[in-house]
């Protein structure tokens, strides 16, 4: 439906490649993420362990595959939820009249005044290790951005001659949304979604970094970074893996976003 630029295709290709790596790794690796071999720690990449082993002798390939899958899963889930909620509320806020708009405005102002990471931290502290809570928290933080953009764009569209003319010609609300509002907001929503995906990955990695939200032996990129950091001089290739993958995923999402935020 939308024409994509070349850089957007590149972004999509990187993401798909990572997804394939993750799914392939999860499906075909003979190891599990927690299977240790304390006699074979921090091995360099070999035929048996394609990406080497970590400080517990666990297969890095398997762990990276799971970690990427986890990041993907959570970020996509957050992306869908927050874009859906944000868009719905954004449109409703404009269309629902002054009262709705004011009420939404208050909620959004409160949420905006709290740094997102802090909200996520608070939520993560409530239920350590619960992905449901992480997902809710990240979505709660992210939908506001969609709301603001969608609301601003929708306000323009609502007053546009095009929508006015459709209304005068007797078209219903769904039609007005489908023909006027959605085409106007969809590029922004798409861009925001791509940035949102990147942010979800960064947020999760940050939580891992402050030891909140994710419990071992789960493979998560931020937590792996912290765990492997002490070995940066002994086994730099290990530390590089989660870092490169985080950067790659975020970068790919940014590319996919096309426009800049």
């Amino acid at each position, binding site marked *: 439906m939308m024409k994509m630029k070349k850089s957007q295709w590149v972004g999509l290709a990187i993401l798909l490649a990572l997804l394939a790596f993750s799914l392939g790794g999860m499906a075909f690796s003979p190891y599990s993420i927690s*299977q240790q071999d*304390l*006699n074979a720690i921090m091995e360099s990449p070999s035929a048996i362990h394609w990406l080497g082993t970590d*400080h517990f002798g666990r297969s890095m390939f398997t762990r990276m595959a799971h970690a990427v899958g986890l990041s993907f899963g959570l970020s996509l889930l957050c992306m869908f939820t927050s874009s859906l909620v944000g868009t719905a509320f954004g449109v409703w806020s404009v269309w629902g009249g002054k009262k709705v708009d004011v009420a939404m405005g208050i909620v959004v102002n409160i949420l905006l005044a709290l740094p997102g990471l802090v909200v996520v931290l608070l939520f993560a502290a409530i239920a*350590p290790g619960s992905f449901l809570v992480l997902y809710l928290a990240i979505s709660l933080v992210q939908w506001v951005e969609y709301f603001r953009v969608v609301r601003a764009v929708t306000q323009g569209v609502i007053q546009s001659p095009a929508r006015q003319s459709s209304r005068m010609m007797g078209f219903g609300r769904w039609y007005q949304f489908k023909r006027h509002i959605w085409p106007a907001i969809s590029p922004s929503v798409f861009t925001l979604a791509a940035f949102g995906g990147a942010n979800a990955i960064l947020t999760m990695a940050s939580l891992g970094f402050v030891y909140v939200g994710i419990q*071992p*032996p789960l493979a998560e990129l931020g937590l792996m970074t912290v765990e492997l950091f*002490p*070995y940066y001089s002994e086994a730099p290739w290990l530390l590089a893996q989660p870092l490169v993958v985080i950067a790659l995923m975020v970068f790919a999402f940014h590319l996919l976003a096309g426009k800049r935020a």
Partner: protein
Amino acid sequence: MKVMPFYKRILFCSSILFGLLAVTACSGPTSSNTVSISAAFEFTSLDPSKNGYIFSRMQVVETLLDVNEKGLLIPALAKDWQVSEDARTWTFDLRDDVYFHDGTLMNAEAVVNSLLIAQTKHGALRNAPINSISAAGDSSVVISLSRPYTLLGAVLANYANGILSPAAYGNDEEVLALSGTGPYKVFQFAPPHKLVVEKFDDYWGKKASIPFASYLTGHRAESRVLQAKSGQADIVFGLDPASLPSLQRMDILTVSSNSIPRTIVLKLNSGHRFLNDVRARQALSLAIDRKGIAKGVLRIPGSEAEQILPASMSNWHLDNVTSETESEVGTPESLLSSLGWNKNANGMLEREGELFELTLITYADRPELTAVATAIQAQWQAIGVTTKVEITNSSAIAMGHQDGSLEVALIARNYGFIADPLGVMLSDFGSNGGGDWGAMNWNNSALSADLMTLEQTSDPVSYKEIAQRSAQILFNQRPMIPVSSYVQQTSVNNRIKGFRYDPFERSFYLNEMEFVKP
């Protein structure tokens, strides 16, 4: 509005800001006259009952008695002490010419004042069977007990019972200024991160050579390692074992590994339906590859521990136990199958349709614990036990004990918290099925009786006999499973000499340190 001043104003503002920054460059302690220490623990209060461990280690606060490296009581602010025949009256003769940091002279009244206040606060003194604490003249303090209590000396050596100047306390007994008697006095107190102390010239003992010492809380293990490597911190405590090899390669510092009476142990809920049989506990113990953990995870070969108390506490350490001893009872598989556990198709243990699943909680304050928990999780997985690891706050352990929700906890227990391990043994295994940091839902009347007897035993031979018996019971019954003895990893910059490690973690011995002359 003119356009021109717009960026001129920006320039102006930025120059002011940078000016301010330059001014904040402070005088006083500099890196050349300060020994800087970095460790994980925060402090929030001046109260010795709360954060006394920091003040006693930084040598601001001292206690009546001290503990030497062997765990024996030695004189400190009390130059001598006597116990009466009935063991119910302890008399302490105070050292003369000891000055508090506020300049006042320490006397019996001040000591009694401090101890009475400490008694009202959280700490070991509160539970001691004390009838009265009173001054006898200017330089003696008498404590009378309701029953014999051999632990009193060790309790008094605890940091919570540090002696402060009477002027240090406010009306509500809260501590307003930390006027202790140590070789260093507080110079800057910036909770929760920074404490700077300055050499106290009127110290009664060995006067410090280094003018200032700073303590900086470094929450992140990796950041502490970097501080050591960069030379920013002279002494770094609690190093992450993972970083040891790279630290050992550095030539600006020396890593010192010291065993301390702290043991990494698994606290088991012996009332749990999976764990109430000793065979299950033994199986879990046997499944742990202690050597592997010591070598691969903790990176200190030889630190594996079969017993709860370390060899240094010889009264409580069984010499005849080796790593093979326990395997005489069977293998994990045989023990578990004798309990009706069998492996299912996935290789996991199952009994009457129920999987062998446990939740192991531990806390992040000590970096090793998480790593050890991860290793244990995998090793138990190998015998078919599924373990869910939860990293939480240390308070969850006491809380889980109280509300009965705890299943397994991995902890680092300090048996030298009170210099005589008996204190900890009593609270951990004494009665009522154990203590917050000890056994859980596990009662052994023989052990309880023995420990009670020890409280009143002063004859070393019979003391050792009873203690050995208790240690044997603990080894056989496994209410707690030891994993490894704790080795404190400390890096010391080579510009410092005279570093000494206190296994009881009471003092950093700052006053013995000197800068190496270049």
